[in-house]
């Protein structure tokens, strides 16, 4: 348990603060929309769903991208009996787990208050948790893989941010082919063919698991990180 507490601290305040800042920020926008502007409830519901499907996965991906390559005494760490990749995976669980806690709290509040169903494309409450779970897993896996390949948080963060932004900007483009529809991160809020939703979510989870596994394999020989400069 003390190990997990330590890893939570090691994952970095940044990794833990980012999803919180994102959630509080977007919740403020939603409240502002609902109260001050007396907005049609659909667009406020969209802001809340976007919090789950866009903002939190980005925070998870960026957090995961910053896990590898930030240990100042990596040489020392590699001499320990605990495998480095086990440590990194533990930090990934802490990072993604924290995002999950925030997402679940938000989703529970949305369901209880009725905001959940004001977004027409929202799924039933239980299955609907895949709204955040699938893209969060996918982005976290992608972040870890990018970090493991590059060994540099800067490269990994930039790659994660680019992917996220590309998916956002090229929404129409990515609806054209079935394969890109299945891999589309924002199927709930930025639209996809209706019957594709479940398949899309499952594909994303599978992709996330596959990328995490690939990152895990790549970190088998962490000695190749030694030539990299620590940030």
């Amino acid at each position, binding site marked *: 348990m003390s190990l997990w507490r330590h890893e939570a601290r090691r994952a970095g305040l*940044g990794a833990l603060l980012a999803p919180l800042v994102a959630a509080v920020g977007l919740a403020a926008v939603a409240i502002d929309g609902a109260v001050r502007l007396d907005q049609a409830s659909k667009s406020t519901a969209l802001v809340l769903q976007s919090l789950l499907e866009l903002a939190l996965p980005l925070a998870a991906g960026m957090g995961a991208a910053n896990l590898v390559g930030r240990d100042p005494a990596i040489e020392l760490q590699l001499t320990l009996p605990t495998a480095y990749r086990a440590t990194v995976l533990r930090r990934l669980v802490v990072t993604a787990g924290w995002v999950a806690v925030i997402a679940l709290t938000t989703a529970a509040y949305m369901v209880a208050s009725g905001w959940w169903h004001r977004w027409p494309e929202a799924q039933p409450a239980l299955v609907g948790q895949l709204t955040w779970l699938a893209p969060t897993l996918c982005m976290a896996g992608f972040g870890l893989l990018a970090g493991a390949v590059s060994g540099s948080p800067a490269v990994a963060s930039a790659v994660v941010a*680019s992917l996220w932004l590309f998916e956002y900007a*090229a929404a129409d483009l990515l609806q054209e082919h079935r394969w890109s529809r299945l891999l589309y991160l924002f199927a709930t809020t930025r639209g996809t063919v209706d019957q594709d939703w479940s398949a899309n979510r499952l594909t994303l989870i599978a992709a996330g698991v596959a990328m995490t596994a690939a990152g895990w394999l790549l970190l088998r020989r962490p000695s190749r990180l030694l030539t990299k400069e620590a940030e």
Partner: protein
Amino acid sequence: MTALAATARYELRMQLRKPAIWIATGLPFGVYALFAVLGSDSTGLRRHWYEISPKLWVVEALGWFTPALPMVFGIVLADRLVRDRKLGVAELLDTTPTNRGARLVGKYLGACAATAVPVAVVYLAGAVVFAVWRDQPAALWWSLAAFVMIVVPLLLLAGSLSFLGPQLMPTPLFRVLIVALFFWAGATEVESEFPSFAGTVLSLTMDYPLGVFFDSANATTGPAGVALDFLRPQPTTGTAVLSLALILALAAAILWMAGALNARTSE
């Protein structure tokens, strides 16, 4: 002066050798080019194939990703200043008979210049391709103009933010926030009920220079009858230059704050 030039030169060379800046800039442009080729007529990207005006091609096809470039700049530049202290180099440099301010400005200019190189290569390559393909050599001038008036001011702003932000918060958090900042700037519109600087002289998507100098259809300028309209004067050369000056002044002010904070922490 020597300290400034030497730091700038060193930082430029060091940063240019980092694969990060090449990958981070090359990747989005590469993916975009791939999808522009794969896409069909129904989507927006395909129309760039038929664009024959070099001016519009430079700001719309080549500049498709430009509003998002500052995010990439911010992410790759975020560790530059704080890293020196983390590695213990800052204390060492402080013992040298050089001016701390000059070193900071030199570092800033060198790092920004290096980060600009991959984008400059993309702009040059894009312009050359268009110039040959459409027999429009003017594309070279337009791409130079867009690079100087749109990319460079955004880079200087993102650069100064990356010198200030990571001193105030953990670097990973700063990386998320700079994505959020420029996402907010790009995704909000004048009509959005959500408060924003869209369509003002302070717009982080450079609406005034884009609208006035490049006639871009993506730029919104002029009074709109909504909040903050005093920041939306008639689009003229004067107001476009004013907009550029404001962005540069903002960058300078943020860099000054970064320098002041850095000096205080060093003591």
